[in-house]
């Protein structure tokens, strides 16, 4: 079991126990803006899910224009209100991302965070193009699924930027506890992200009629096992570290919610909804909630992985055998 470094008698009362303090001032406004961008991105994912659940993806046949115009507001009825509403929220998120990237680039001292904000901008551009291509090519499953996967990738980036600009990340030194268990927690969190990403692609392929439902349902069992294992490890061994505990608790809660929503979505769409004449409200609500909670679950797991990487590093002598242990953390 790992020990808290700050309790290690060799470091007691020395400067080393504080580890590395990042000399970046906390920018409250930038952080608030990043949080706002992440929240609007979740709203955008909900808007996108509404388009798919209402089968409204092609109600506006052209792109990047809407019925031939960049600025004219179409009559917002039927499928148009979902498709054009999604486009409007997407444009707003694009604008927010541009502002976030420029603001971060101009004020942030951490070079990697500046690069991450530019990566966010690149991702949102790719996402916009994928959205356009899927309309122009009549919703091919591969492009529509890529659009769904990149949407959640962008959401994860937005959440990470919000976390990295947060006061806790910037001002509080990491509370480090070395990981001595096998397998170590950090690879487990990476495995959790991987199985969630596979699940996202399988779900998107099913939703966009590129695959049957059963791979997504079968893989849900794998996701449940891996994420539960990760959460239990994090909570049983590292519950003293608040950032890890909170993320693991949230991940576990979202996992349970997501499994319940997945079951409801299966009933309303596959079991009861296969012969429906039009999208019905229970199916729309359950599938949209399933997509939104899925995005939150993926982002929470990414946050957990980053917090584990920060707070629970593998003991240094195990990474570099024979070397004197030196505190290392972000």
């Amino acid at each position, binding site marked *: 079991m790992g020990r808290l470094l700050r309790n290690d008698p060799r470091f007691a009362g020395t400067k080393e126990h504080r580890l590395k303090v990042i000399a970046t001032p906390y920018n409250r406004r930038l952080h608030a803006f990043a949080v706002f961008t992440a929240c609007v991105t979740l709203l955008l994912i909900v808007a996108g899910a509404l388009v798919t659940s209402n089968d*409204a993806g092609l109600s506006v046949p052209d792109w990047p224009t809407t019925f*031939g115009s960049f600025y004219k507001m179409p009559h917002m009825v*039927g*499928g148009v209100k979902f498709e054009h509403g999604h486009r409007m929220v997407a444009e707003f998120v694009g604008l927010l991302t541009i502002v976030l990237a420029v603001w971060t680039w101009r004020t942030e001292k951490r070079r990697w965070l500046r690069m991450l904000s530019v990566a966010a901008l690149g991702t949102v551009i790719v996402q916009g193009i994928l959205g356009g291509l899927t309309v122009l090519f*009549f919703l091919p499953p591969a492009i529509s699924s890529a659009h769904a996967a990149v949407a959640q990738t962008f959401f994860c980036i937005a959440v990470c930027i919000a976390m990295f600009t947060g006061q806790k990340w910037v001002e509080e030194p990491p509370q480090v506890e070395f990981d001595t268990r096998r397998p170590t927690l950090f690879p487990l969190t990476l495995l959790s992200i991987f199985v969630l990403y596979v699940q996202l692609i399988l779900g998107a392929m099913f939703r966009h009629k590129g695959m049957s439902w059963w791979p997504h349902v079968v893989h849900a069992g794998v996701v449940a096992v891996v994420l539960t294992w990760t959460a239990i490890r994090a909570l049983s061994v590292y519950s003293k570290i608040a950032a890890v505990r909170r993320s693991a608790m949230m991940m576990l809660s979202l996992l349970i919610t997501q499994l319940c929503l997945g079951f409801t979505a299966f009933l309303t769409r596959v079991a009861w909804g296969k012969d429906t004449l039009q999208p019905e409200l229970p199916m729309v609500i359950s599938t949209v909630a399933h997509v939104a909670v899925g995005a939150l679950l993926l982002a929470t797991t990414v946050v957990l992985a980053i917090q584990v990487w920060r707070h629970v590093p593998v003991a240094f002598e195990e990474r570099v055998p024979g070397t004197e242990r030196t505190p290392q953390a972000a």
Partner: protein
Amino acid sequence: MKKTLLATLSVLALMALMLLAACNKKETSESQPTGAETTAPAPAATAIDQATVGSVSGAVKFDGAAPPKAQKIDMSQDPACKGSNEAENVVVDKGSLANVFVYVKDGLGSRTFDVPKESVVLDQSGCRYHPHVLGVMAGQTVQIKNDDPTTHNIHPTPKDNREWNESQPPQAAPIEKTFAREEVMLPVKCNQHPWMKMYINVVKSPFYAVTGPDGKYEIKGLPPGDYTIAFVHEKLGEQDQKVTVGPKQSKTVDQSFKAGAM
């Protein structure tokens, strides 16, 4: 510095051009008078001796203890959509099954037929397609009209023909399209009004019919021969029957679909 200025000006000019292009565009369907698929020149039609032609007619029944009740559709998401709100996927009246596409599937050999010059009309009215099932010859023009005070989009999702998706605002000019390849039960839908679905059947010969509300059909002008008649329903599937038509003979071929197929 000069390069930056030049790049900025170029981007602004490009954006202005895009905006100008957008302003000049009208809604999609108005700018596209026709959308005929490219087809190879049709070979000359095989001559048919009109003095010997016969016909096949009959009725299609729904074979079940209790005919299915028409499902209700909810059109409330567009206030412009008014009228009947019953689905047309299985229409049964006193045991007679409507909207069955009946055609000569086999037996015509290598005969070729002239493509009619007249268009087949597909109307959108009351946020429904009229007719619900349509037959057309490959290469024949389908004229699509919008008689509703709301915009529709017409989106066929074929397997063998080219897919397209166009919007049609109220009072817009009809959209004219052709389908190059044979395809039975080609689904057409409107993504703005998700209950709007219909089927186009593209065949190579003029020997087809769609059953009416009384379940009856008639195929006229058939040259004598042995044929396979196919009965295709969007939900109940396909059933075939063989029939021999002699000179000037009128044959009756009835068909029934079982409820269990649903």
